């Protein structure tokens, strides 16, 4: 196991990239710490697969270096880098039995048969296929095949890193829980460096210690799931993380107050008047419905019952504003104002977060 360093990395699929737009992956410096679980999160086409392929050695970057420890591996192939990878769609050896599929990477490396058998048993137990080791992989369902692919990716204990490329795409929701938990348990046990590419925020947040959010070929934020939720550095992170995403409202910010269409909103910090397009961002989780004349007056569109909570869909100045209300919450008559928890409001100028000069009060870190 080893620390992976991306040094001044950039990649373009064009032979002679001219402008920044030609780069699928823009300037990137990053260190993947040994033994951490990372997620690469972003919409399709944001450059996350390009980055994964560069790390795995399937693609040579147009600029920059990759270091494994102190070793420059930029021009080495996947085998030399000693990396395991699980692909989006199942890759199994059809004519082999399930057990042989799992044993294959170990046999190719000349491991002792007894050790192979023990390791295969362990992995089979993990993916829940102990009783199917003897049967042929051909004819299994797609999710069974994907479980074999996952198992084969994790069967070697000596790999430098394990890469996952949207591995749960073909898996049923219920099974996803099971497998993700297993991956996590495995990470706790062996401490492999894991890099997990996905467009699904739940998968990314629950799997990873650190999430790398990518947008338009750039890393817009790297942080723990809490960081991404509490203080999105970019409006894209606010929008992309959370369901529904962060509410963004145009505002004039001065001192510890924001003015939205003539309504004053208390902020949790003190700001020097930011330049550019200024917005305040608040997650629906920290919006409450009130009556009276405090808060932002809105037009309520509808309420969606999502089971464990309700989503209030409203509009302010023609823009949607959402709030999350508890399960079974009955809307008070005449309620048409939204209150934002001040210490949960973030301020953005031209899409990037502006840090407050100092917090007004001790933030009370508790979700609704």
């Amino acid at each position, binding site marked *: 196991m080893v620390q992976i360093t991306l040094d001044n990395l950039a990649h373009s699929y064009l032979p002679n990239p001219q402008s920044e737009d030609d780069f699928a992956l823009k300037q990137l410096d990053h260190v993947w710490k040994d033994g951490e679980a990372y997620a690469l999160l972003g919409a399709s086409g944001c450059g996350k697969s390009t980055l994964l392929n560069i790390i795995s050695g399937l693609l040579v970057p147009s600029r920059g270096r990759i270091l494994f420890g102190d070793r420059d591996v930029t021009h080495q192939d996947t085998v030399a880098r000693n990396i395991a990878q699980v692909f989006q769609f199942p890759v199994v050896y059809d004519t082999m039995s399930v057990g042989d599929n799992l044993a294959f990477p170990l046999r190719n490396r000349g491991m002792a048969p007894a050790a192979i058998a023990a390791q295969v048993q362990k992995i089979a137990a993990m993916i829940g296929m102990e009783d199917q080791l003897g049967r042929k992989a051909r004819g299994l369902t797609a999710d069974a095949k994907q479980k074999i692919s996952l198992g084969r990716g994790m069967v070697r204990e000596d790999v430098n890193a394990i890469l996952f490329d949207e591995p749960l795409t073909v898996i*049923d929701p219920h099974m996803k829980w099971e497998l993700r938990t297993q991956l996590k348990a495995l990470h706790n046990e062996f401490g492999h460096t894991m890099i997990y590419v996905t467009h699904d925020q739940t998968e990314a947040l629950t799997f990873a210690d650190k999430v790398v959010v990518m947008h338009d070929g750039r890393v817009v934020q790297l942080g723990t799931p*809490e960081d991404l939720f509490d203080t999105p550095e970019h409006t894209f992170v606010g929008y992309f993380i959370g369901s529904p995403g962060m509410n963004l409202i145009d505002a004039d910010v001065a001192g510890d107050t924001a003015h939205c269409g003539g309504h004053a909103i208390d902020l949790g910090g003190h700001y020097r008047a930011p330049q550019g397009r200024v917005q305040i961002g608040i997650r629906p989780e920290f919006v409450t419905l009130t009556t009276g004349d405090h808060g932002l007056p809105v037009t309520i569109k509808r309420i*969606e019952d999502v*089971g464990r909570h309700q989503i209030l869909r409203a509009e302010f100045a023609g823009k949607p504003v959402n709030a999350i209300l508890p399960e*079974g919450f009955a809307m008070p008559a005449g309620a048409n104002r939204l209150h934002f928890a001040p210490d949960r409001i973030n301020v953005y100028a031209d899409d990037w977060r502006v840090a407050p000069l100092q917090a007004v009060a001790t933030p009370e870190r508790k979700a609704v």
Partner: protein
Amino acid sequence: MSLVLDGVSKVVEGQNHITPTDLTLERGTMNVLLGPTSSGKTTLMRLMAGLDVPATGRVIWEGRDVTGMRVQDRKVAMVYQQFINYPSMTVYDNIASPLKLMGLNRSEIDRKVREAADLMQLGPLLDRKPLELSGGQQQRCALARALVKDAGLVLLDEPLANLDYKLREELRAEIPRIFEESGAIFVYATTEPEEALLLGGNVATMWQGKITQFGPTPSVYRQPRDATTARVFSDPPMNFTRFVKAGDKIDFGHGAVAAQGALAQLADGPYTAGFRPDHLHLTSQGAGGLHFACTLRVTEITGSETFVHLDHTGDRWVGLIHGVHHLDFGAPITVWLDAAHVYVFGENGDLVAPASYAAAA
């Protein structure tokens, strides 16, 4: 206008793919088929559309038996998980294609195409070819083509499954709006409970070729008829544990405790308790609460919430806890549960007592 399935079944090579099913879908309703992969959602849709002939039973459309009628002769539109468009035609021609087949005149076609395109936000893209569009736009095009037909029955087979998470969220919010304007019967297949809840309307939960329950979505969610329905309609899956009721005590396998609330009303005997992950708590919920000693297997933090995966004397549970909690793996942990959130199922899986909170909600 209604679609009635009367004892419809489907048998393939001696195996029941759909057990005899009765189902009535009313005009202007959104109906979600919810179930895991290969639970029979697509097969049932094919039977509704007339792409397959049922082994037994009849399909009745507006009071008329259409069992053997070809799909072309019915007013049916279908959208699939894959983005299916004519690759060589522009978006405009794609949307216009069913109208041309119907033999409408040019100005009417133009009006309808532009109307559907506006609804699906495809207005500026009408001259493009489908392969020049993003996945979300391609699926909008397929949806527009289905809508423009003015079909009485619109079948959507996991239409958002191949889209990115956020795109899915956007289109999902649009579909109920589109549906409201069309007045047709919508049938929407999905594997995701959350999607079913967001779409609203009615839900039919499916398990192994059988509709286990059909009714308004929130009521199926809160008042499942049996353990199978409860499991299918819960993500993360519902937690289950067995217990025995004897006199005024209940025993979850680690000592008898006083039976509270609805649990006190049960006849003596063995039962299975079921409760949803979001009803588990790490702190006491006041009097009348149940508590369980568990082992913590794994935690997952979403940024605002924490999933705790627990081992309760062999039962695997998931709890969804508000806030961020950093806990030690493998450590013993006590979790609390309000008895009002417990569903009680009998030995055969049928609901014996609903969770009392649900009756109030």
